[in-house]
């Protein structure tokens, strides 16, 4: 029964194995337990002990009198608050790590990207001239923390948006004042008997989401770049075939790079490798799952064995000695699952304990020491490996597209700019751009929507940027390889061949969606495509979303002016008014909108329609792929092939294949 569960052959193989072993997985549980039909439409409220109230049938008010609208809006708002808090708390931890590093208390960390530090310092108003990097880093960390705790005024990063966007935010009253404050306030507003007008609740939710995108997430990304380097393109492997039969397999899973970067140092330590050998292994193989994987993939090229729904399946291989997890998206199911194999599950975050797992608390002050301790546990576990089965499935991808690199890629050190990208959109080589992000969800076929939507978009000459589990999904099907240009429309293919990029760009983890914002912002200010993100022929998708973070991301994308499509039935379906407000209401007030569309075909159709509408509004030429596709290496390759074959060729004549 794996037919419509996944399109990933490795996952299918492991699902089969799990079934044979009688192991339950998210896939099987999802089949056994259908979603609650009331909750799934946002019809229930359990915000106080008078309830839970279910506003279905003849009930159109809760005990307190709350309407369907209020309840749906509150449910949505609380998802935003939870998601934003997750990202922003992650950002806080990064800032604290930077602070500790700058103060010399975390000796295993350093400033790997000084340029980025200077750039961020400038945004945060930290003086840089004539100062030591560590001094700047300290104040930058403090300034970042101050942003998170800021109570009044406006977040400094809002300046990174086009001026027009900033004005729209101010006018609509959604310019975030701080980061923590917006979460707290949103929780307050949704407490029983507080904000009880859906429009007001949803605008507040928007402000909170923006404090994530242009605040917590953006800080997290920037500081991670400072500490671990801004990504530049590199080649890596993806899918479970990256697990090794004869090496100690250690998997990092979760979100924060602070520990995983240290684990990487530890597994490369010759002493550790020797130790592994002493235990009969050929070496130590580090791989990742979910966004920790994305972080180490983007910067270090560590292979990724899967996305959210692969976490259990990877364990089912029986080949994993040790899985190290930190925060977010870690299924509690891993604990009983690990018990079925020799695998050890190590929790590390003081914020994320799981009953039954071994907890080795991570402390950045002794980072490497702890990392080695953990790795050693994995090595010690190698001799216990029993019947293991590793799927052969493996693919290759090119990752590492920070917006700084994209800028460089389009012109080099001296001429880097977004001009070529904008030109491509203006001329119609690119019909538009899209972000496809987010999770997996066992309620729909694993990876299928990601794969379909991405493929359709590039076929239609839409350049795609991806993050999170979506990026891993597309990578598994070869869409993140430069050779995937052959699946792209003629215009996009020309751009890929010109720059050497894949048609789908991996820009990082879930917090790195902030990179999409800065990229769009740069496109809007480069010229020729209007003056606001909302003017761009751009769309966002979260086709298989499941986490609350995804709702926050979707909201801040919409809040930044992007048409964002969430791939599911609406979780607010009980209140069509609220649904419409997220779409039409937001669009009217801030230019972007959020819609829930479960059918991927319809989603693509609407997205392309939107892109064409924006193109028309900009007065750009109508999209016509037949005009493009002449450039590139093909003709030269043909010519060389003829030469090779000993056919008569002339430099002055096009090759003519018989």
């Amino acid at each position: 029964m794996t037919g419509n569960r996944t399109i990933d052959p490795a996952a299918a193989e492991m699902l089969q194995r799990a079934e044979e072993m009688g192991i339950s997985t998210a896939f099987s549980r999802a089949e056994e337990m259908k979603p609650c039909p009331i909750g799934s439409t946002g019809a229930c409220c359990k915000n106080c002990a008078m309830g839970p109230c279910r506003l279905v049938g003849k009930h159109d008010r809760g005990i307190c009198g709350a309407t369907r609208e209020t309840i749906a809006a509150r449910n949505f708002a609380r998802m935003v608050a939870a998601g934003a808090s997750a990202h922003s708390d992650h950002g806080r931890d990064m800032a604290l790590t930077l602070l500790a590093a700058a103060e010399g208390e975390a000796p295993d960390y350093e400033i790997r990207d000084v340029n980025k530090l200077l750039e961020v310092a400038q945004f945060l108003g930290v003086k840089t001239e004539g100062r030591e990097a560590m001094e700047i880093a300290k104040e930058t960390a403090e300034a970042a923390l101050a942003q998170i705790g800021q109570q009044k005024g406006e977040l400094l990063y809002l300046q990174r948006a086009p001026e027009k966007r900033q004005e729209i935010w101010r006018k609509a009253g959604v310019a975030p004042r701080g980061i923590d404050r917006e979460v707290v306030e949103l929780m307050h507003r949704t407490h029983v008997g507080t904000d009880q007008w859906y429009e007001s609740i949803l605008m507040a939710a928007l402000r909170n989401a923006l404090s994530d995108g242009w605040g917590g997430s953006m800080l997290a990304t920037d500081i991670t770049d400072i500490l671990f380097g801004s990504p530049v393109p590199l080649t890596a492997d993806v899918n479970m075939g990256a697990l090794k039969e004869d090496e100690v397999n250690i998997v990092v899973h979760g979100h924060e790079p602070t520990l995983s970067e240290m684990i990487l140092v530890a597994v490369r330590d010759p002493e550790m490798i020797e130790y592994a050998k002493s235990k009969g292994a050929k070496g130590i193989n580090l791989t990742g799952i979910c966004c920790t994987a994305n972080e180490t993939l983007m910067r270090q090229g560590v292979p990724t064995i899967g996305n959210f729904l692969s976490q259990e399946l990877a364990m089912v291989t029986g080949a994993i000695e040790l899985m190290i997890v930190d925060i977010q998206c870690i299924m509690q199911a891993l604990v009983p699952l690990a018990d079925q194999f020799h695998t050890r599950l190590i929790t590390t975050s003081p914020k994320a304990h799981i009953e039954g797992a071994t907890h080795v608390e991570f402390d950045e002050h002794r980072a490497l020491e702890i990392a080695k301790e953990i790795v050693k546990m994995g090595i010690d576990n190698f001799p216990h490996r029993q019947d293991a089965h590793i799927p052969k499935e493996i693919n290759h991808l090119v990752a590492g597209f920070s917006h700084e690199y994209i800028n460089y890629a389009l012109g080099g050190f001296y001429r880097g700019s977004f001009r070529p990208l904008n030109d491509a959109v203006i001329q119609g080589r690119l019909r538009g751009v899209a972000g496809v992000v987010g999770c997996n969800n066992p309620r729909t076929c694993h990876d299928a929507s990601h794969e379909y939507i991405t493929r359709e978009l590039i076929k239609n000459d839409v350049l795609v940027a991806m993050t999170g589990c979506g990026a891993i999904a597309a990578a598994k099907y070869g869409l993140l390889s430069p050779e995937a240009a052959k699946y792209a429309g003629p215009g996009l293919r020309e751009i890929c061949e010109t720059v050497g990029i894949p048609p789908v760009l991996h820009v990082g983890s879930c917090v790195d969606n902030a990179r999409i914002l800065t990229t769009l912002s740069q496109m809007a200010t480069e010229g020729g495509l209007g003056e606001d993100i909302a003017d761009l022929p751009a769309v966002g998708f979260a086709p298989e979303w499941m986490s609350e973070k995804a709702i926050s991301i979707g909201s801040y994308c919409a809040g930044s002016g992007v048409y964002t499509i969430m791939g599911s039935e609406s979780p607010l379906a009980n209140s069509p008014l609220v649904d419409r407000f997220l779409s039409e209401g937001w669009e009217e007030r801030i230019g972007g909108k959020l819609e829930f569309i479960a059918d991927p075909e319809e989603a693509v159709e609407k997205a392309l329609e939107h892109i064409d509408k924006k193109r028309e509004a900009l007065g750009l030429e109508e999209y016509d792929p037949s005009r493009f596709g002449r450039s590139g290496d093909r003709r030269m390759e043909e010519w060389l092939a003829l030469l090779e074959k000993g056919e008569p060729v002339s430099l002055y004549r096009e090759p003519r294949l018989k």
Partner: protein
Amino acid sequence: MSRYIATRAIRGANRIVKEAEDLFEKALAEHGPDTKVAFPNTGYYLPVILGITGTEVERLGGLKPVLEHARSLLHPVPKERFWTPYLGEALDCGIATLLAEEVIMGIRFVYGEQPERLPGFRLAGGTFTSPDESAQEAIEGRVNGPIDDIQLRSWGIQLVDGRMPGFAAIIGAAKSNEVAVKIVRELQMRNILVFLCGNVNGRSIIHQLMEEGVELGYDTYTVPFGTDTISAIYAAGFATRAALTFGGKKGGQTREIFLYNKFRVFAFGLALGEVDDLKYATAGGVISYGFPVIADTVIPEILPTGVTQYEHVISMPFDDIEGKDDLERATRLVQRCIEVRGVKVKIAEIPIPIPYGSAFEGERVKRADMRIEFGGKYSRAFEYLRMRGLDEVEDGKIEIVGPGFEDVEEGGYMDLGIVVEVAGRKMQEDFEPVLERQIHYFINGASGVQHIGQRDIAWIRVSKSAAEKGLTLRHFGDILYARFHSDFEAIVDKVQVTIYTEPEELKKWLEIARAAYDVRNKRLVEMTDESVDTFYSCTLCQSFAPNHVCVVSPERLGLCGAYNWLDCKASHQINPTGPNQPVPKGEPLDSDQGYWQGPINFVYEHSNHTVERVSMYSIMENPMTACGCFECIAMVIPEANGIMVVSREDPSMTPAGMTFSTLAGMAGGGLQTPGVMGVGKYYLASKKFIKPDGGFKRVVWMSSFLKESMAEELKAVAEREGDPDLIDRIADERYVTTVEELLPWLEEHDHPALKMPPIL
């Protein structure tokens, strides 16, 4: 990019940087780090290096950091599969290539290997005064090498006034000699400057053109740089200096320099024949300037735009170009190049049997090649243009009064009078001299015809080959008719040309013309800044120097020498929204100091608010800015209590301790620098010349070229100043090139400046 191109460019870059490093080590060992490294006659050191890195390399040792920087820009070649992006990387490698190439050329100069030797080659070039002056002919047996600053500046003005739409850097060798000549002719016809370099298997387009007897040199807009790819660096050097000279950019403002070129310098590369790694690598560098590259062979194309304005790389396999023969294909190729760069070419169709274009303006006809001569030593020629009533001119009528030159023996001469009569509703008498002066350019544009002088000192030669192709006197009329209509359509409705060779008629018309010249002379001389209430602006040069504004008054002409007050007035009439706008004088704030509210406001508005106050006359206080096209630079010599004036023809050292080229860097770019000012040379003779600072008597040193070429005018100035020997009291480069020498010289010659109040 394409992966193929990126791979080859990156490979080529890695190799050339290594080659430069090796050569550098060798030179260092053989000559030592203190050996001077320089290109001749430029104030911009090694210009590409200066532009890109901001380093002023003067000595061999200074090349080391340049090479280190070049190395830091290198990248490995893209992989065969799962490659990472290569566009930015390949462009960086292109920059590394340019740096390495310039390093190599700098060192080759140390070894005396540049300009490259080419046995049997003879450069047609240099500033020329007479077609027979063989002493002016450049050094034999060497190609041109880098373009000097003097030439750069003189082309500058043509680049801005549209006479020269851009430049083409041709690299390699054409499919045949015939094609080579055709391509160059096509470019010349469009007045596009042609740079020549590179080879294919040892054979260069320079060889091809040489074999076909095509004259190469500054005068024909064709500059042979060298027969290897490395010499293409001189084209990049020219482009870099354009940004530094006219754009006011500083060395190290790399991105700005590149963007200036992308938006303002219309240039492209044309790769003829096989493209090898080094050519790809060099192209990678050239693309950063925003210049596209077109090849006549099969290479991958890069059609998306962005780094360049239009397509980046275009391949037009020569034999696939539609056309009945190779010549037609060559024409099409050039047409496509022009499209790709977006070069705007205005070309009037002139119905004559010889090629026509400004590129032929500089051509000279040597006595040996001459069919006939009008004017000069043995005969007389004059030109006269007058306006008539609309019903007095028969449009298109061209009449020859007297015999043609068919019967004159080869190499002979005859008298000639050209009378042009124009009519138009907007025509004014004031425009007559302006239009008349165009006759020089118009006639000169014909290939094989040489025109010098004006009025009754005109001097025209027709070459044998032009005559063989069927050129007759009537064609002069055709040229003038076509050009006056196309260039002055706003004011000229009817044109009629009469050409006189019949002695009696000619004599009669010469009298009429001379009377008119006289009236005009007086009118111009009599006109003063006080006698008019409107000055004119010229912002033509803003296409190059965005903050520069010339204010032209009757007593101060534009610094390029090409526009006086009447010209501006006429040009405003011709094109009311053009670069010459009336500037009402407005409130006189202090007219002796040259301050009027009108010009001050106008300049502030049109200099992007960078020049807050401008004096019409002073060099010391709020001097007028300069774009880079100046004929002369005036500069204060505080020790001598006066100023010196150096002309752009003068390459010598001056008492300011700098040559014209170096000084130009300080004077240009639209900045106000008290004590330094770019001027048109006839401003020296004006009563208003630095009037607030003491006037002409302040001139303590001037290039001898000025003394000679303006002898008459300066004599009048000396008399006006009440000191007939004044000019002889002024030092020049023949006697004095340092400040130390200057003072005793002035004492000895009793120069009045020494007794004037302190200039500072």
